[in-house]
């Protein structure tokens, strides 16, 4: 007997129990396998999807041009429904972005090892979702070319932005969120860009990746600052996620309108954002995993973890619905009650019950461990949640506006083709961005997976050692 045996049973080591990597490979092979999507020519499927997304992006460009040339009158919103698709899409897209930051930052802070295989794709999703989100506040300004009025610069008009207005809060929040997401993503990419540079055979690829990797050499000094900086950015991104969607919910909560003027909005919106974002991560990850043969690094354990998160955030969202309707009733105000009643029984009832089915009932599937690891079930559920979350923003925004205090001014809303083109166009832009990302940048964080593999090996060796010793002791 030389060393004392550890007290806890070794099989409880979290790195051994969950198969986060399904096979062990030498580092060089592992790196090459993870770089294969960017080093080999894309298949027909990729080109077909790029074609569809590019066509939708052209549609987006057409819709934006029409909005700029003719004005926001081409949209379906008008008094009393002064806000509609512009804000719905904005809230939906920015919410989708949040799961990317959640996965990469919050799970990093909590030391969750499973994040390493999915964080790069989730972060890329965040970036493209934010680009789509940022379009809408600009477009709905009416005179979008004067967007710089929102920035406090000393103009000769002596005109300052109104900082008490949620519109300026939004601008600062989105700009900050987009900037921090880009920095976080790029900092995380640096070591992998160096790997890509050193693996590539063609000179032009080496040069492009060499420029992008900024001369990264993986020195101990580099890693020391890099790790500290990466962790700090994660620590900053975590409250940022919560604050950004809180500010988005203030757009509504600071208004006096029944159905909007509610203190439950900030947490309810944050939960909804993370819920919809997780759904989008799953919608993208599952096909990408299959198409790029990433089963060894994006294992069933990852799908299981994401499905659990989907279930938990779905329960938060369901709690939000209960709160909203309970306080609508409990307020005793006829206006508040009406705002909630028309959701359940009024003209918006079909949308409301679809939301209920997609966001409350569908996630309940994932109480079952077997369904959590069924990619097809997960994917369909994720798509339904995406639809449900879009419709949720639709009813939150449109229904209180269309039937507010004065019945004589009630009017319902219908989108125009420009509205619909903007929505589908941003879906195309988002998809195009994601497809190009999969093609040109390493979609799985290579250095992190190698580090994880090393840790797993050490952990397994330790477990093996101890079990051998225990066997000997007996």
């Amino acid at each position: 007997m030389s060393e004392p045996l550890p007290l806890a049973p070794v099989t409880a080591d979290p790195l051994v129990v969950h198969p986060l990597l399904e096979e062990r490979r030498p580092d060089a092979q592992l790196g090459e396998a993870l770089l294969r999507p960017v080093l080999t020519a894309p298949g027909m499927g990729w080109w077909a999807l790029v074609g569809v997304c590019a066509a939708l992006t052209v549609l987006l460009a057409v819709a934006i041009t029409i909005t700029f040339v003719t004005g926001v009158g081409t949209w379906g919103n008008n008094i009393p429904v002064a806000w509609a698709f512009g804000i719905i899409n904005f809230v939906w897209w920015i919410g989708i972005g949040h799961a990317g930051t959640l996965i990469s930052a919050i799970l990093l802070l909590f030391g969750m090892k499973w994040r390493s295989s999915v964080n790069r794709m989730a972060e890329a999703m965040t970036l493209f979702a934010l680009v789509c989100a940022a379009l809408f506040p600009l477009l709905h300004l009416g005179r979008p070319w004067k967007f710089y009025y929102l920035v406090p610069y000393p103009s000769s008009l002596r005109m300052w932005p109104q900082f008490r207005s949620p519109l300026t809060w939004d601008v600062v929040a989105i700009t900050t969120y987009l900037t921090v997401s880009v920095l976080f993503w790029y900092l995380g990419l640096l070591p992998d860009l160096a790997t890509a540079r050193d693996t590539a055979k063609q000179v032009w690829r080496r040069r492009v990746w060499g420029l992008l990797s900024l001369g990264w050499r993986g020195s101990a000094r580099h890693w020391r600052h890099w790790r500290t900086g990466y962790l700090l950015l994660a620590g900053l991104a975590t409250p940022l996620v919560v604050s950004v969607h809180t500010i988005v919910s203030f757009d509504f909560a600071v208004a006096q309108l029944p159905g909007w003027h509610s203190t439950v909005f900030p947490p309810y919106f944050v939960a909804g954002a993370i819920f919809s974002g997780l759904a989008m991560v799953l919608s993208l990850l599952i096909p990408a995993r299959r198409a790029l043969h990433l089963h060894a690094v994006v294992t069933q354990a990852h799908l299981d973890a994401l499905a659990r998160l989907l279930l938990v955030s779905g329960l938060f969202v369901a709690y939000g619905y209960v709160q909203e309707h309970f306080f609508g009733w409990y307020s005793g105000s006829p206006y508040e009650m009406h705002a909630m009643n028309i959701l359940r029984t009024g003209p918006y009832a079909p949308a409301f019950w679809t939301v209920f089915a997609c966001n409350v009932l569908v996630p309940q599937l994932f109480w079952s461990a077997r369904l959590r690891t069924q990619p097809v079930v997960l994917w369909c559920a994720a798509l339904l949640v995406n639809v449900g979350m879009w419709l949720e923003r639709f009813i939150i925004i449109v229904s209180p506006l269309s039937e507010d205090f004065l019945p004589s001014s009630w009017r319902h809303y219908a989108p125009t083709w420009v509205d619909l083109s903007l929505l589908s166009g941003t879906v195309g832009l988002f998809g195009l961005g994601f497809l190009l990302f999969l093609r040109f940048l390493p979609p799985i964080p290579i250095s992190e997976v190698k580090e994880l593999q090393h840790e797993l090996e050490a952990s397994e060796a330790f477990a093996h050692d101890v079990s051998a010793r225990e066997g000997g002791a007996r």
Partner: protein
Amino acid sequence: MSRWVLGEFRSPERMVEAARALRASGFLRLDAHTPYPVEDVDAVLGLPTSRLPLLALLAGVGGAVGAYVVQWFTQAVDWPLNVGGRPLHSGPAFIPITFESAVLAAAGSIFLGVIVACGLPRVTHPFLHLEAFRSASIDGFWLAVAVDGSEGVDAAEGALRQLGAAVVLAVEGRR
């Protein structure tokens, strides 16, 4: 002109051991180049902890103060605008932008801090011209010993070989 001797090891554990042995035998100007961060290497090389957190704190506080002052000055001093009788200096309404600006300033300074502290961006470096050194970002664990003169080169080469380096190379160039 600076000179280095580089040695490649096949596993991080061996590299850390070699670094420890090199330091014990008097080679102090060491660096390691690895495909992923290796535990213990900072301690063995005697690197101090990064001071980026302090930079982030200062930048964050600066961003917050700056944003609050801009809002107070524009809304309450330079162009007071009475909206529904609300106070001109409306602190709670200034909080969202103050917070976001703190985060923005801190994040920007962290990113630039990492880049500057690592001596990036640089597109060329003597090491990057070596074909064998490409493994430093793939599966090789390299130790770099900075040396003076040709005796230093010989001594370092000998030491690295003795410690079991698979490849030993001497480089010179501008650091």
